[in-house]
């Protein structure tokens, strides 16, 4: 045996229990948040059953102060938002007028595009166009367009490919990609996009925000089943709220909201179609919000396809194994759609 200092399993267990208890008591809000982010099931239920009352007690005793102080020191304000109170996203959404429940589209068949997408042959009625915000500024090589690509994991490759297209064409634009993997609008207690939008707007001052979101939004909203009309109406309000948070303070800023692509399997086919509906429904309410439809142009007549054909006629394996994300080479397709949408509003050379 080695000369390592040895101890008993009992003592090691005691140290672990004290360590976990200390970490738990000083970080109850973080544990609540972690619990809320778990998949539904007994582990989540048990964790939350303990964490909620502990969080209340810890809050009363101010035990969360070390964590909040650390967060402030590290530049993570508002990183903890337990569900004992309403999140900023929920509050922002509550302040908005209820929106009409958008009509459902046929699962797998994308609805018509709106102002920012390439034309399709779909026959769904064209929704109202978005109100026009203040005129956009003219980008030059000396003062390039600042583009922030953000959202969930779907945004990562799309953003990187958009940056490549911009660099390859020497366009007067700078692309910053900041994917927030695992996030969405249905669990603001886990990740609050209202807070994130406000922080990103302040930190990066983007001219354009490309928001790519939806891959993690298979959760009920206020008790409404995923994809139901009530769910869609609330989702739409949240899109509106986050867009307003991005745009606040800069009427020239635009948000290009990219809906998720057509996925391979149920239940995501229905959920993604409804998310696209919800985003489209939010557009008329927010000056400066644009909807970008990648689902239609990257599908096979509205149905999932692994392969897409590029301009040179090459077949590209465009999707990942999960049937949700684009592959890295395949992400050039949504990136081109996004760039085409930007060119519709901005002079990019």
């Amino acid at each position, binding site marked *: *045996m*080695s000369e*390592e*200092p*040895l*101890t*008993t*399993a*009992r*003592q*090691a*267990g*005691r*140290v*672990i*229990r*004290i*360590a*976990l*208890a*200390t*970490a738990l008591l*000083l*970080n109850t809000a*973080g544990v609540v*948040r*972690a619990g809320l*982010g*778990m998949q539904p099931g007994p*582990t989540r239920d048990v*964790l939350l059953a303990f964490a909620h009352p502990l969080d209340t007690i810890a809050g009363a005793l101010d035990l969360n102060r*070390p*964590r909040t102080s*650390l*967060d402030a020191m*590290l530049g*993570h304000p508002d*990183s*903890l938002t337990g569900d004992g109170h309403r999140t900023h996203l929920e509050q922002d959404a509550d302040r908005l007028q209820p929106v009409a429940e958008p009509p459902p589209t046929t699962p797998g068949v994308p609805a018509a595009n709106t102002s920012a997408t390439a034309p399709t042959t779909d026959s769904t009625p064209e929704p109202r166009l978005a109100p026009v915000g203040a005129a956009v500024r003219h980008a030059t090589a000396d003062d390039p367009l600042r583009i922030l690509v953000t959202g969930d994991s779907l945004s*990562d490759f799309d*953003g*990187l490919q958009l*940056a*490549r297209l911009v*660099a390859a064409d020497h366009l007067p634009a*700078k*692309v910053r*990609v900041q994917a*927030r*993997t*695992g996030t969405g609008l249905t669990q603001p207690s886990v*990740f609050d996009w209202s807070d994130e939008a406000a922080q990103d707007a302040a930190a990066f001052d983007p001219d354009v925000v490309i928001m790519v979101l939806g891959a993690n939004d298979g959760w009920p909203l206020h008790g409404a089943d995923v994809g139901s009309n009530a769910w869609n109406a609330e989702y739409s309000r949240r899109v509106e709220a986050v867009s307003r948070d991005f745009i606040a303070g800069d009427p020239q800023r635009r948000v290009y909201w990219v809906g998720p692509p057509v996925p*391979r399997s149920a239940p995501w086919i229905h959920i993604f179609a409804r998310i696209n509906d919800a985003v489209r429904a939010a557009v008329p309410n927010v000056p400066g919000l644009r909807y970008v439809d990648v689902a239609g142009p990257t599908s096979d007549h509205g149905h999932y396809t*692994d392969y897409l054909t590029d301009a040179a006629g090459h*077949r590209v*394996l465009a999707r990942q*194994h*999960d*049937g949700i994300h684009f592959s*890295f080479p395949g992400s050039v397709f949504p990136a081109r759609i996004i760039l085409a949408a930007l060119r519709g509003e901005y002079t990019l050379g």
Partner: protein
Amino acid sequence: MIFPTVQFALFFAVVLPLSWALMPRQRLWRPFILAASYYFYAAADWHYVFLLAGSTVVNQLAATVITRQDSEKVRKTALITAITLDLGTLGVFKYLDFFSDSVSGSLGLSLGLLHLVLPVGVSFYTFQAISYVVDVHRGRTPLAKPLDYAIYASFFPHLVAGPIVRASEFVPQLSGPRDPNRIPAARAFGLIAGGLVKKTVVADMIGTKLVEPVFGTPEAHNGTETLMAVYGYAVQIYCDFSAYTDMAIGLALLLGFRFPDNFDRPYTARSLQDFWRRWHMTLSRWLRDYLYIPLGGNRGGTPKTYRNLMLTMLLGGLWHGAAWTFVIWGGIHGVGLAVERAWPAMPFAIRIPQLVKATAARILTFHVVCLAWVFFRAPDLGTAFAVLGRLFADGPSTGIVTPAIVFIIAAALAVQWIPRGTGARLREAFVTLPVYAQGVSLGVLLLVIAAVSGGQGVAPFIYFRF
């Protein structure tokens, strides 16, 4: 379920005391730890539990036949069957869609894809299974009892990303109850806490803030940023992977089991051969014992030795994934190892003072390793060459190389030069603290780590993909 999560903390908080409570009653402990391991694996995707169970049954059956049959022909057939099934499983999950896509693309066919999601840890437990049946065939390890082999194959600390533990190292530890009075807890806590810091503070931060932007859009970054990203990735992958295996070793220690080390300060290596003795050591020795030596090793003369080296490294590259980037990564290491082997025999080999030689060798080795990492990290060859091309590019800074990032990279590299005894002295000091002080200090460290990750959760470990 990955280690640095609340889910795993809950799981381990239940399993650890139960494991020690049941340890004296081995008839209860064995099914318990097996069930716990399968539960851990099922948390990722329950479907693949059947794959793990199937692999266990097939390899144990083969090992039984190999042990009990006298006929070498039958024994060999059992061995080949098991290895074929093991490699076939890997082939189906890792390479079939790549092959199908390549054939479709080149022949204009439409073969369709299976869309199989790579089962977590399949490469690791498959390699362990192969080493088991081969070692049984070679007579280097005895046939394990079925339940012991099942525990060895699925033991949750090493199941997902190694280290690749051999049956001869683990199964004997199952021969009786582990001693609850001889737990190197300080070492275990050090490995787990160090792993958490390496993963959340170093790897994830460098990956997000420096490496991803540069490898995502190399054209947008100048030479300094690109060089820092290359160094940054060397640090990121080391901290990410070694963090996982450190935690695995630490968790196993708390359960009373010892695993072999997997990393030994790899960036202090004086040659590529030395690097491979320090990096992913359990894979290196696996490749040596089950690939390089069976290919002939250095027994067939110089040309064959070089061929075997290249084949081993190229296949080691392909093990990481079906992509040319991994082949080139393996190729760079293969060529480098061959050059090192040939160097003393070269007529122009220069005599250099020892100190200069050692320093230059370390710097050169580190940079060859970094060069290979560029191909390992890049999503495709075009990106890899773009990154290399940008190493000498001018241009404005995008501000991603901050003093904090430079400090973290420098510190992560510098830590590898800390004398070996330092960790032992820290552990000795730690155990002199009262129990409550040990617990509170670890709890506060957990809090700091949670705050540093900013509630973003932990990014997936890089080696989960392999």
